[in-house]
């Protein structure tokens, strides 16, 4: 089973030009079985093995995965570059503050998703005619517009330090401990990944992939390019909004200064480091980028020199930048491909052993 994207297939005799083979959609998205098993493994680890600090990091990672997987739908599968994550997360979080009065956590998260989705559709409408760098600039503009709106809202409502979200309860559960938060985040992530899986298996997913491979060609074979670009942007934004609202509940505070351009860039970096348009890549990337500061400080705790602790933020930034550069230049497929390269020989050995004993 090959996973090559963009392989020109030999022409059947008599047909003019080249044909592009689309990657099978089933190869693209994580399968439901894998999703459920993965979530259960993480939960078991968190329940029995993790210290509170690790648990906290795991919750953050789970929320980062929600954003990265959603961005991958847009950037990896549809080929629309975006650095609008922070903007959509902010829309989700601010809407959650408002919707919380009506029905608590679930209302807040759903309303956050809907609002972000609507904004995503609008941005998609602007981006309909754009590609490449112009497209990125439209999401960059969104970032600044949303940050300004948030600032103005806080000023108008006289909340200079942002809004406080109450500790929520979902039905009978009180979401107080980090374990319950991890469960909540993983449920959201699992639902999201299953939705992405369903999308990528169907007509919609094939249209997205066709647009990624060649916009004009997709139009020629009957894909409504403008509509599907909008849909991709809208669906992805809605998921990012849900994640943003959930994360805001977890942190307990919504302030426009959280949603910086750097945050948006870090999500694009997660997808890119993990592997653009790969199944598990964005999840790996989300984990790596989220855990990087903790990893670095853990490495540093061995050394007694104060230099690292003093310059921790600069060193984080340096390593993060170098990581992106090295990955992009050395292995454009990202961690997903690197990992496969490492595990493939092992898998082949295993297969040989299994075959050997079987015959």
């Amino acid at each position: 089973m090959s996973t090559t994207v963009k392989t020109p297939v030999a022409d059947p005799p008599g047909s003019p030009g080249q044909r592009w083979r689309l990657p099978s959609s089933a190869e693209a998205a994580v399968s439901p079985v894998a999703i459920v098993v993965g979530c259960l493994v993480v939960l078991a680890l968190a329940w029995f093995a993790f210290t509170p600090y690790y648990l906290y990091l795991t919750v953050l990672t789970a929320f980062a995965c929600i954003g990265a997987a959603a961005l991958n739908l847009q950037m990896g599968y549809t080929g629309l570059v975006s650095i609008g994550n922070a903007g959509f997360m902010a829309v989700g979080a601010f809407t959650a503050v408002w919707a919380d009065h009506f029905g608590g956590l679930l209302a807040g998260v759903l309303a956050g998703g809907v609002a972000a989705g609507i904004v995503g559709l609008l941005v998609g409408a602007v981006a309909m005619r754009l590609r490449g760098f112009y497209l990125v600039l439209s999401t960059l503009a969104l970032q600044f517009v949303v940050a300004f709106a948030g600032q103005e809202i806080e000023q108008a409502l006289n909340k200079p330090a942002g809004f406080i979200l109450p500790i929520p309860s979902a039905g009978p559960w009180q979401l107080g401990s980090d374990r319950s938060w991890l469960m909540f985040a993983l449920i959201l992530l699992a639902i999201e990944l299953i939705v992405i899986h369903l999308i990528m298996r169907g007509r919609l997913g094939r249209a997205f992939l066709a647009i990624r491979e060649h916009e004009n060609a997709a139009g020629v074979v009957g894909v409504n390019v403008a509509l599907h670009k909008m849909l991709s942007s809208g669906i992805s934004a809605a998921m990012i909004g849900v994640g943003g609202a959930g994360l805001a509940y977890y942190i307990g505070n919504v302030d426009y200064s959280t949603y910086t351009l750097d945050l948006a860039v870090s999500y694009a970096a997660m997808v890119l480091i993990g592997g653009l348009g790969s199944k598990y890549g964005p999840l790996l990337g989300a984990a790596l980028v989220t855990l990087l500061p903790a990893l670095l400080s853990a490495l540093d705790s061995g050394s007694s020199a104060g230099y690292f602790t003093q310059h921790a933020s600069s060193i984080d930034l340096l390593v993060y930048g170098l990581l992106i550069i090295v990955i992009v230049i050395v292995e454009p497929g990202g961690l997903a491909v690197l990992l496969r390269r490492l595990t493939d020989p092992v898998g082949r050995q295993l297969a040989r052993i299994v075959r050997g004993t079987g015959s």
Partner: protein
Amino acid sequence: MNLLTDIWRIVVLGVIAGGIYAPVSAGLVIVYRSSRLLNFAQGALCFTGGYAYYLCADKIGMPVGAAIPAALVIAGALGLLIYFLLVSPVVGRGPIIAIMVTIALSSVLEAAVFLIFGSGQQYVQNPFSSHGVRLPGNVVVTPLDLAIVIGSVVILTALAAVLRFTPFGVAVRAVSDSPLLAGYWGQNSTRVIAWTWALSSALSAVAGMAYAMNSVLDSGMLTLGTLVFPAVILGGMDSLGGAILGSLLLGLAVQSTTLYLGAQWSDFVIYGALMLLLLVRPYGFFGTREVVRL
């Protein structure tokens, strides 16, 4: 204050601000033309250029007349380095890669500068007297402001002349049109593109030095690169004249919003305008449309 003095004030301050934006925009355009790449690290190049001047003038203690050229040379060398190490491996690999590499470069430059010089604010040597002249309408203009505007005009005119009349300029324009064809005609495309990166970095350093002398050397300068995107889009990403005009308009827009609505509105107005512009006229007023073939 009546409308006329308001307009006068906006024009004076806007032109001065435009004098800082214009070299940055010009740097973006030159690199976009030669490498088809929108450089998200342009602000970081201003930042490092400012620190190069700080290193020469304040740390080493060179006289200003030597420190400015030295900073430009350092910036140019940095541009060459960036091209060969980072950009040439990823040229032609699509916008996502190009954007992320330059964003990462921006992080690396920022971190490196902070690790070397410390992350506080730095004051740099300002050769011009800070004693301003009060123009009618209560606008104070310092000799530095004047130097920024004149310097900007001189540098950009020289740049335009070089691109138009010298063999190097012809080579740059040829490579921008088609590296392949320019190669067939005996141009070393790689070398020409590398020089455009050096030039772009030096132009940013000019803006960085002006900014640092005008206020202070700090991380606020990093946003200078993204701030001029609307100006560059307005003019059309591959038009030098358009970018300069866009920078002037940007300066005027920033100053008028600051005067009438308050400084916190300027981001909103500028990027809102960018959004509208992308909706209505994505290729700007002087740019060339991208043509995509099946």
